[in-house]
């Protein structure tokens, strides 16, 4: 028997809270990206859990998750390249230094 949806949602909420804590307390760009990825994983789990409530929503939930995963992969590429560029220019990953990169 599969556990109730509430347990999956509770796992996702705790994961979201851990990610939120990391996002608020870190100043390094890469650390913030990693924390945002934790939040992204929590969001995926919540989306699939709620989609599993009804047979009608299940394929749509799966399709939306596939789209979200592919877009997240693209987003990771951009942020990591920004981090590498920032490190080459400033020798630091501190987000307070980011405003110095304004074009």
């Amino acid at each position, binding site marked *: 028997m599969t556990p109730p949806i509430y347990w999956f949602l*509770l796992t996702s909420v705790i994961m979201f809270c851990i990610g939120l804590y990391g996002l608020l307390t870190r100043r390094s760009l890469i650390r913030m990206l990693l924390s945002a*990825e934790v939040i992204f994983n929590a969001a995926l789990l919540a989306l699939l859990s709620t989609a599993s409530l009804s047979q009608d929503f299940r394929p749509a939930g799966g399709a939306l998750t596939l789209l979200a995963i592919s877009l997240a992969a693209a987003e990771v590429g*951009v942020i990591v390249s920004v981090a590498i560029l920032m490190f080459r220019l400033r020798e630091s990953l501190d987000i307070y230094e980011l405003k110095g990169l304004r074009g």
Partner: protein
Amino acid sequence: MNLQIDPHMIVFFIASIGALVSALLVVEHKSIVYASFFLALLGTSNAALFVLLGYPIVSIFHLAVYVGAAVTFILFSVVLLKEAPLVEPIARGVAVIAALEVLLLFSVGFRPLLESEPVQGIISLEEVSEVLVDKYSFALIIAALALATTMIEAITLARREVSS
């Protein structure tokens, strides 16, 4: 005494505890290389939870695209970077309060779903692709365009010459 242990429950507990411990280590580990490694573990545990919910296709996609490509990309990229631990000491208290508030709000908000069971059965590739093509074709095109654009953007940013 006949003890019956449900394998689904065992997998759920292992995967969810694994995911939560990995999430904590992603945020708290001193080394960003190890933090990225724990993000890969988090993705793998999440994929196991997706299988339990009846989405093996999404789980395979998550492992292949997210863990296999995105997280591995972060893992290899952070090796190039040197990080000093940058923490906002004042924000710690605010972050703990915000996280606890979110936890409380959502755990109470989701309470009506306490007894709800997920729909049994496995979602097939045909069902997902049918919805993607029929219902979300425009979103699919936009996602493809966004992927192409971000790829060009990432290459341009990475190749930018640094003026002294």
